[in-house]
Every structure is written in structure tokens, then in C-alpha cells.
């Protein structure tokens, strides 16, 4: 079903005009309300009057996660605090979180976008949907929740953590749709299998996202649960889940480009690339009031296709992600930067010990282990000292990145040294 046919099926010309009008407005907004952007634009010699349509987009400055860090917490907000009704936060590259704010209208538009995505997955008001993303500062839970409510579906706000309760309610309520990370859904499928219920579930669709997954994994989910699985994309800086989602033809994710203007650039030269070329995805928010961002570099690598889809939508499609142009890891839906681990270790130990982050997927759940070489200054002849060191490091890391981490002490000089750029991550998850 197409939720908003006017917007999702408009001609390219109409879309370009709409995007142009909205771009002019958003540039005006940030120039006058956000000092940081005003200075950035002035440094480039650009004024709002220079922006007349999307053909002028490349005159505008880029925004990165570092800009959000430099203006922490509210420096990029373009609405007064009295207009902000919600705050979300995700991981920053070091220490401080990336904070975003929403006005009431932002929340409404977000719900509209998520409703479009759910409708694309065939979900209607007649469905009972379990939202099994984490509720809280993470955008996944509340984002999916508001979207599903907007659609009129019956929402069961499960959050994460209690799979037994989830499967019990899934059976008892006759749940027909679920929103969660793909790896968690596989875990749920296994639990249902163990309980002997996998043949009896009424589930028909799943909207999965917040972590990278492959087409194979999608097909595996479909086959195991006899459902249709869809890929939803988003990031808190731009909105949260619901920036793009794939349709029943699974030939890329439709971007809700009346709200989020996409570009593909070369991460090296920062020059725009043409349709079909793989590069870094960049978004300009067109209707955001709380924290509108100009040309935000997502660091996600993909390509774009402007051709009309078999489903009837004309919205541009981005291909399944081909990786990242930075070293960010997504572990159980949580963004983790190796630099966060490094900063936490530094804070604890004075200088950074040699360490390695090992990411794996065991029983369909991501695991993160940090191995630290035992240097003389950490070593002790007493086990309780070594164990208390492990506990302290575990605690510091969990606080820093908000994810369960296993810390393991290893012998000195056993972790791999590289000649060039230091390698601090081994990702054993098979995602390709």
C-alpha cells in the first residue's frame, strides 16, 4: 500500500521544485537561527539569497559528526528550547553523545515517514505490531512506535531484553508484524523454534534496521519465519528510522526525499557523483525545525537510482549499503567508534594499552570483546587484582559506549601490530 501517493509518486520535476522551495526555507532558517551555520556559510561566502533551488546545493557547507560534537549539546538547534518536545542521543566519536532535538512538527513528520515505511511493508491499521527496538535515547524504539501508531496499527511496545516474554505475547496476541534489528529477529526465530511455535506464529512482516545486514540474511529471515522482511534505514542526526525503506520489490530503499534530500559524493574529493556511482551518502533535511542539517555526511557508502520503481513510487532508491567511509561499527544497533574505546582506556590507564576490539555474531547476537595486553603496570601476582582491573575496564567501557562488553586480558605483544594505520578492530561477522 502507498501511504502518501501525492508525495511518493510525484514526477521528478514536481519533486525538484518542492525540494528547491524547501531547501530555500531551511537554509534561511539555519542562517538566521544557528550561529555555527551562519559562520560556516560566511566563511564560504554564501548567503541565503544565493540558494534558489537544489542546483545550488553544492554551494552549501558539509556537516559532520564532529560539528555536532563541537556544538554539544544544543548548538545546532534552530528552534528555541520551548519548541523542542523531545531529545534523542546516539554515540559520538569520543566521550560526548550526539544530541538531537525535535519540535512537535518534527515528531509528526517522523511518524509520517515511518508510517510510509510500514505501509510499504504491507502493514495496516488491522495489524498488531511489536516494536522490539530499544526504547529510550536510541531513536529506534520511539521512532517505530510513533510511526506504527500514526498508521493506526496496534502497538505492543516490547523494547528489548526479554525474548521469552516477546514470543509468549507474539503467540497470545496473534502479533502480525514486528520491528527490530535483523539479528534480534533471527534470535527470536530460534527461540520460537525451540518453543515449537515457529509454524504457529501469525507474523507476516518484519521491518528490520539499525544495523548492517545482507540480502542473504533477509532471505533467511523470510524463509525461517514465512514472512516478508523489509530493510528500514535511518540515523538520529537526520531523524531516526524512516529516512528510507525498501518495498516489496527489494530493489533499493526508497528515500523520503520530500523531507530528506540525498546526494552521493566521493568521500575523497567531496565532489558529487552521478546516478549509479557508489560513494558517501549525504543528506540535507528539508523540513526539520529542531536540528536541520545541511549536507550531513552519513559516512554510509551506497549508490542512488532515480528511476521509477515497479511499485509505482518515484522516490529515489539507495542501494543496500556497501560499507562505511569511517571506522564506525554497529553492534546490536548501537554505534561504536574504536576511538570511544581508546578514549575510555586512556582515561582509565593514563596511556592507552595495546588493545583489540573483536566483534562477532554468536547465535545471531552481536558480541563485543575488548582484549587488552597485560603490561607491567597492570600486572599483579594476585588474581583479585587482575580481576578487579578487568571489572573496572568493563565498567568504564560499558558506561562509555552503552553496550555490554567482555574484557579479556591477554599476554603482552600477542595482539597484531600493523605497519601502517593501527588495526584495532577484528569484525568476524559475516555480512557479505
Amino acid at each position, binding site marked *: 500500500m502507498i501511504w502518501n501517493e501525492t508525495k511518493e509518486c510525484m514526477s521528478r520535476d514536481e519533486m525538484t521544485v518542492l525540494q528547491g522551495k524547501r531547501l530555500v526555507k531551511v537554509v534561511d532558517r539555519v542562517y538566521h537561527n544557528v550561529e555555527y551555520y551562519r559562520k560556516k556559510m560566511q566563511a564560504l561566502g554564501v548567503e541565503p539569497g544565493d540558494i534558489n533551488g537544489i542546483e545550488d546545493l553544492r554551494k552549501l557547507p558539509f556537516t559532520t559528526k564532529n560539528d555536532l560534537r563541537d556544538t554539544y549539546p544544543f548548538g545546532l538547534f534552530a528552534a528555541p528550547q520551548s519548541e523542542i518536545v523531545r531529545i534523542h542521543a546516539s554515540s559520538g566519536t569520543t566521550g560526548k553523545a550526539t544530541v538531537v532535538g525535535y519540535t512537535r512538527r518534527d515528531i509528526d513528520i517522523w511518524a509520517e515517514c515511518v508510517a510510509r515505511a510500514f505501509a510499504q511493508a504491507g502493514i495496516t491499521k488491522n495489524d498488531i505490531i511489536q516494536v522490539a527496538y530499544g526504547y529510550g535515547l536510541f531513536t529506534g524504539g520511539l521512532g517505530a512506535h510513533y510511526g506504527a501508531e500514526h498508521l493506526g496499527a496496534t502497538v505492543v511496545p516490547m523494547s528489548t531484553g526479554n525474548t521469552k516474554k516477546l514470543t509468549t505475547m507474539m503467540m497470545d496476541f496473534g502479533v502480525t508484524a514486528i520491528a527490530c534489528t535483523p539479528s534480534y529477529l533471527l534470535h527470536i526465530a530460534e527461540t520460537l523454534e525451540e518453543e515449537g511455535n515457529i509454524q504457529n506464529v501469525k507474523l507476516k512482516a518484519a521491518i528490520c534496521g539499525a544495523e548492517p545486514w545482507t540480502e542473504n540474511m533477509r532471505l533467511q529471515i523470510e524463509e525461517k519465519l514465512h514472512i516478508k522482511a523489509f530493510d528500514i534505514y535511518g540515523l538520529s542526526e537526520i531523524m531516526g528510522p524512516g529516512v528510507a525503506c525498501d518495498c516489496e520489490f527489494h530493489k533499493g530503499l526508497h528515500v523520503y526525499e520530500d523531507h530528506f534530500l540525498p546526494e552521493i559524493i566521493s568521500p575523497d574529493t567531496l565532489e558529487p557523483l552521478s546516478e549509479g556511482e557508489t560513494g558517501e551518502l549525504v543528506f540535507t533535511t528539508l523540513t526539520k525545525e529542531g536540528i536541520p542539517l545541511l549536507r550531513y555526511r552519513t559516512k554510509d557508502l551506497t549508490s542512488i537510482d532515480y528511476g521509477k520503481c515497479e511499485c509505482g513510487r518515484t522516490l529515489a532508491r539507495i542501494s543496500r549499503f556497501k560499507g562505511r567511509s569511517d571506522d564506525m561499527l554497529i553492534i546490536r544497533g548501537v554505534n561504536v567508534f574504536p576511538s570511544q574505546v581508546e578514549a575510555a582506556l586512556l582515561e582509565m590507564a593514563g596511556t592507552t594499552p595495546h588493545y583489540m576490539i573483536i566483534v562477532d555474531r554468536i547465535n545471531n547476537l552481536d558480541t563485543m570483546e575488548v582484549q587488552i595486553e*597485560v603490561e*607491567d603496570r597492570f*600486572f599483579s*601476582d594476585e588474581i583479585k587484582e*587482575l580481576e578487579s582491573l*578487568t571489572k573496572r575496564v568493563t565498567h568504564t567501557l560499558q558506561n562509555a559506549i552503552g553496550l555490554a562488553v567482555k574484557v*579479556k586480558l*591477554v*599476554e603482552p605483544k600477542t595482539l597484531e601490530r600493523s605497519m601502517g594505520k593501527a588495526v584495532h578492530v577484528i569484525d568476524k561477522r559475516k555480512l557479505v
Partner: protein
Amino acid sequence: MFIKQLSVFIENREGRLEEVLETLKQNNVNIVSLSLADTSDFGLLRLIVSDPEAGRNALKENGFSAMVTDVLAVRLAHRVGRLQELLDVICKAHINIEYMYALATGKDDASIIIKTSDLNKALELLESEEVEIFTLKDIETL
């Protein structure tokens, strides 16, 4: 008088203990006694050796984490309840035993290695109990 114990960090990996022993052998360091403590992720090997400093240097050169610490070596008579009597003295002074293991067993007596939360105080107490405390020299000749 304390003696020196050599402590080595060992990952739970095949062959690591053997490699420690190999290194000590290559450097002509004799093992008098040892205790191996294990946790789920790593082991801690504590050794009384003929030359702890030489042992530590050799191990470090071969990439191991090793350190030398002070411990007490006590000779006690082969008699029921003797160890309990000594520990009673230590416990009454509110000193914790961190770890303990056997050093050597003779015909008439036995010896133990002991590490306590307050080593000086423990030494003082044991000396007043008229037990024999080993010196570094004693170990070298064991």
C-alpha cells in the same frame, strides 16, 4: 626475611605453560616449587626458582608478563594442627591470606609459601612463634 617469588601471566591457550618452562630451562633457572591458579580467561603461575631475577628477565625478553614479589616461606613441623596454629595467630591479627601453596615436604617437616595482606606484620608474628623462615640463600640451596 622474605623470599622472591616469580609470577607469570599466562593466557588460557595451548602450549603457553610449556613455553614458560622452556624459557626457564634455556636460561638455566631451576624451579623449586610452583602453583598454578586458573580463572576462566587466564592463568597465573607462581614460581619459587633458583634465580628469580634471571627468570623474570628471560621471560620478559620472550614476551611474557612477569614480576618478582616478596612472599614468606615457612618451615613447619610435620604434626597434626601445626598449620592451623600458625594461621590462627595470623588471623587473630586481622591479616588476610592472599594465597598459599606448598614449598617442600621433608621427613620431619613441611614448608609453605604464604602471601598475606600485611607481609611485615605476618613475618613478625611468625618469628615470635619460633618457626623457621626461609631466606633467599636457603632457597638457592634447596
